């Protein structure tokens, strides 16, 4: 009899343990569950593509689905969009999460490549990467070389100044001043075209900030969130005036791949609709939702 009791006790304890694990799993599942669209995960990439396109995927799309992995190009020097996590050495950031979620929607695995920003367009066309998810703005110049998806979020072209520095009211106020920008960015094109500003280029936007802090340059123009990130880490900068403009940020792919473009647009639409883009944006930008057009 005593034996029997022991076994009942063991069973009850086991059940309790299992239940506890289950509860913990459910609790832990709360956060990432935001915007999980039920149904897509169980289907294969080929099924999803068939459903979205209404026909067998062709070209690059077929190649990626056959491979099961999408190769994403991403600039790791650009927090909080993407940067390196010190502990794991892996990429983290808004663009990284968007890439992962995009792959999830399309039923694919994701692999990151981390080239220099200026080399990404060439790499896309050479077939080194399938898609660039790197907060790229559409410019007429780039549109000649690449195809762009629908925008997945929107950022401001914003001017930053050292704390206590002048507040600008428009691009005219930059005339004659030295402004630091990342090389091959839209800010560079904008300043070259629209103002008498002396433009100084850096390999990546983040490298312009030390010069601003040191007083070598008068302003830095970059994406609003990038500057805000620097400020939130205690850097002595502030916004100078309102945003000069807002720009659409898109995924970029090799030219002439309509099926792959359609699949990516489907992923972006899904992420906009199920709220996962908003959730990722609020997560990475201290509660700012950058995914709304108006």
């Amino acid at each position: 009899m005593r034996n029997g009791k022991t076994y009942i006790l063991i069973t009850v304890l086991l059940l309790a343990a299992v239940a506890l694990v289950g509860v913990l799993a459910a609790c832990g599942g709360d956060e990432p569950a935001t915007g999980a669209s039920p149904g897509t995960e169980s289907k294969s990439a080929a099924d999803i593509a068939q459903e979205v396109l209404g026909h067998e995927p062709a070209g690059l799309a077929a190649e990626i689905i056959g491979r099961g992995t999408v190769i994403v190009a991403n600039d790791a020097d650009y927090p909080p969009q993407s940067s390196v996590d010190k502990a794991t050495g892996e990429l983290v950031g808004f663009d990284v999460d968007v890439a992962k979620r995009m792959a999830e929607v399309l039923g694919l695995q994701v692999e990151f490549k981390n080239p220099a920003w200026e080399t990404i367009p060439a790499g896309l066309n050479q077939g080194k990467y399938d898609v660039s998810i790197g907060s790229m703005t559409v410019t007429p110049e780039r549109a000649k070389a690449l195809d762009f998806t629908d925008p997945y979020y929107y950022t401001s072209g914003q001017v930053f100044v050292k704390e206590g520095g002048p507040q600008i009211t428009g691009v005219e106020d930059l005339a004659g001043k030295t402004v630091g920008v990342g090389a091959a960015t839209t800010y560079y094109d904008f300043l070259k075209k629209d103002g008498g500003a002396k433009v100084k280029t850096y390999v990546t936007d983040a490298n312009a900030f030390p010069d601003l802090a040191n007083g070598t340059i008068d302003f830095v123009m970059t994406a609003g969130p990038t500057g805000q990130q620097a400020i939130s880490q205690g850097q002595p900068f502030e916004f100078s005036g309102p945003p000069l403009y807002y720009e659409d940020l898109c995924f970029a792919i090799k030219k002439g791949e309509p099926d792959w473009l359609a699949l990516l647009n489907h992923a972006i639409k899904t992420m906009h609709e199920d709220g996962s883009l908003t959730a990722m944006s609020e997560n990475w930008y201290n509660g700012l939702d950058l995914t709304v057009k108006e």
Partner: protein
Amino acid sequence: MKRRAGIASVALMAALLALLVTALTPVALAASPSPAPEGTPVVTGTIPNPKDPKGIKNWAGDRVQVNFKPNGAELDLASCQLFIDGREEQLAKEPFIVPAVSRATSTLEFPLAAKHKAGKYAFKVILVTTDGQHVEYSWDFLSEGEAGSGSLVSVRVMREWFWFIAEGAVVTVELTIISIAFACVFALFGSLGRLSKKMTFKQAWDRYHSWGYMWRMVVGRIPYWVATFYTSLFRGTPLLLQIYAIYMVIPEIIRYFGLPESYNPPPFWAGVAALSLNYGAYLTEVFRAGIQAVPKGQNEAAWAIGLSGWQTQRRIVLPQAFKIVIPAVGNDFIALIKDTSLVSVITVEELLRRSQLAGAATFSFFSTLLVAAAFYWALTIFFSFWQAKLETRMARDKAREREQEKK
């Protein structure tokens, strides 16, 4: 025994079943936030941000920012309040709306009158709209280390990113050792080529007056010309240019010939190619000088005992030349350690690039560059030490000779 096992397996089955049920139970989705009523702002995030996914636990301590969705509401800025640890905070001036980064979210900033040190704080804000609505939002924040990066060097950043940068040092050492090995091979052939010229054409013509001999001499002169062209080209153009050229031009050539892209050189090997070709050119001259420094009598003696040309080089001249060039090669080796940093421009994640990445993530470039500098310095000290050891060992015969002279 049997019954025991039976009950145990029943228990196990029950446990598995329970696990299965819990696994299949749809995870309760967080209720999608019901749209707040028109006219009520909703706070979506703050700075300092306790939920910052990057886990950056510092706070400048001189301002608090609240991001919110206005939902059509207008804030009565003068009435908005900030409480820290339950006390209403003294502000430097009225809270104000900072230029928006987002079209959907607004940012309200409270500039604090006094700067707060690192520590644990409980925050509460009350947003007041123009039609009298009150929205309360509270959060805790534990700020670690120095609040803000007002200080030039952040020990915390250096500590946290140390191992990340250390991995770059491994790549730097790999680059250096592989490149110097290839460079020595290039230099060996380069120096032999440079030394293959024994006399001028005019001297040869004056001596032999034979067209056949002249023709053989032209063919025999090719190694000299190739080696001279090589050293001239690679010593005459910047190393940085060579790195860019090899990394970017080879793929163009591959594309031109219609070869697959998998033939493109990976950045690491493009870097090794550029470094070893460049250093090979410099070492060519070093080796040449080393070979020429071997006394001529050694060559003549080797010839006298009937060694062939190649045997003479391999057994007599090169071993002695090797000893002579060690200091110069060691010098170039040290220089190469530092020149590997140039490869960072083609995305090889060696020391310098790693420290730049760390700097970009923390906006604390000076700290991360200091770590990289320490690594470079340590590496050069380490290798110079072993170079000195090697020199002493190679000079054993000289030491012995001196000993004997004394006796």
